[in-house]
């Protein structure tokens, strides 16, 4: 009476059930990011969205990407965003400045993006995509440091630019009249 790969009554693979659950969490939290009124809660919902995305990466046999997603996106970038919100938001300012001043433009952008995604999904020949493949971490590392050394080095220039930009911002804030 061992449980197989599919759930007993509904006949759906357990991995697919997990995928649907994670996708639902992701879409729900993504909606919350846009719809919630409290901007901090939006940021937290975004973290949930990232976490569900990391789960989907694992289901796609890419545990390293998932770990990077959690480490960088949740551990660093979300914290950066939370910091930014906490440091800048003030109840004294009018909420209209923060929220929904550009709803028309945003709607246009969203529709265009949706169209692009729909076209991309429709135009791809999904028959060519094979089975889910397992990317071994060390294979990935070998390829990265063998064939893609130059892009890898360029990443550091990008990061350098980010650091210098941050420092510049900080210094300007300090020297200028506030």
């Amino acid at each position: 009476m061992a449980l197989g790969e599919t759930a007993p009554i509904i006949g759906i693979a357990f991995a697919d059930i997990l995928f649907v659950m994670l996708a639902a969490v992701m879409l729900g939290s993504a909606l919350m990011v846009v719809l919630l009124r409290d901007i901090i809660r939006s940021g937290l919902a975004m973290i949930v969205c990232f976490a569900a995305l990391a789960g989907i990466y694992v289901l796609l046999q890419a545990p390293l990407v998932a770990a990077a997603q959690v480490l960088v996106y949740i551990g660093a970038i979300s914290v950066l965003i939370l910091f930014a919100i906490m440091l800048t938001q003030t109840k004294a300012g009018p909420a209209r400045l923060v929220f929904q001043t550009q709803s028309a433009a945003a709607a246009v952008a969203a529709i265009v993006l949706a169209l692009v995604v729909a076209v991309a999904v429709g135009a791809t020949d999904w028959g060519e995509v094979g089975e889910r493949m397992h990317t071994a971490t060390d294979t990935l590392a070998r390829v990265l440091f063998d064939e893609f050394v130059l892009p890898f080095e360029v990443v550091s220039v990008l990061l350098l630019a980010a650091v210098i930009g941050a420092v510049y911002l900080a210094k300007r804030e300090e020297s200028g009249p506030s």
Partner: protein
Amino acid sequence: MSRAWGRLTLPGKVVFTLVPLLLVLSVALVIVIAVFGGAMLDILVANVGIVRFLVAVTILLLLAPPSAFIIIYMEMKIIALMNLRLGPDRVGPWGTLLSTVHGLKVLMKEDFTPTGADRIVFTWAPIVVFMASVMGALVIPFAPGLIAQDLNVGLLYFFAVGGLSVVGLLMAGWSSYNKYSLLGGLRSAAQMISYEIPLTLSVVGLLILAGTMSLNTIVENQGPWFTDWYVFQQPLGFVIFFIAATAEANRTPFDLTEADSEIVAGFATEYSGMRFGFFFFAEYINVFIMSALLVTLFLGGWQAPFPFPELHIALDPGSLGIWLLLGIAIVPVVATLVLAAPFYLLRSSTPWWQALIAGFLLFNVLAVGAVLGIAYVNFDFVAGILWFMGKTYAFVFVFVWMRGTLPRIRIDQLMGFAWKWLLPASLVNLFVTAAAIVVVGN
């Protein structure tokens, strides 16, 4: 009877109804198991993967509060002894139950939400912090084979979930609607992200040597002699990791998160009751987990410092037949008498019953020692878990010792130290290791 019932509070009534109900239910459960046990066992064996998962998760979650209690007691008692105080000595032998009583007390305290707080975020913050510290235990190898899940990105997973606690601290600080909380949350977040970089970079030299991120393989590489432990090949990495781990666990001298002389209790200022309790648990579980990771990475984890001579005591109690029963009946009596004799003979003032009690206690100690010794020799995991826990609690002791000894540092020193000293030092360690590998070759 009815008057006593009427005097009970509502929670008391609930408890007094639930407890007999649970008793009846457990009796029923025993009967069910007795009747359908065989069939259930078959199902369990067929789905051994699920059973393993359930057991692993349950053990990890249920072991978290007791280990926190042990560390809290250690902290109270050891710091007291270092301060020439008595420390806890009322509840249980040498006060050992005091932290448990504290835990129960916290369970019964009012769990209060301030008016200005954001209720949902306020409730989720301790959960996030607690989970961030407990989830690391999923990849810690406690003994050969005793690891919940040997992920091949284990170490990266550990640091990734450990980083989640920053989010929890920010949530707690923000949602409390209190300036101390917000300052404490921001401070601890800044501290943790600053020390996470040296923490993660200090183990890279070790990763180069090990060639894997799976913690189980890292431990297996560090045997059989203690000279194979990575601490001897990575001394600088070990020191950096230890300092950064202290800061990550928010321990003295880096406990600015709850610098009570400056910001009351930091992010936990507005918390009370069980939600505060989970912050408290998380802090002490963090100490345990960080010590465990330190031991796993640098001090050989469950490896004994020297290979134990290969002997397997072949015991087959069944072959003794009737003598087994006789032995069980006779050996304790004879051994008690034999062990009691010296007590009785050495001092004439000792009454016979005291000598008997002493002999019985001594026999028990010896018997337990013998059983443990046989278990140690015959079962790898017993030896493994003993060494692992011994080393881990040695480091827990060091953390407590530091709290008893070192003063808290200033926040500018704290941040400067992470970025100006630890980060360059860990990079130096990394490249020196890499250069050594290049020079020596494989």
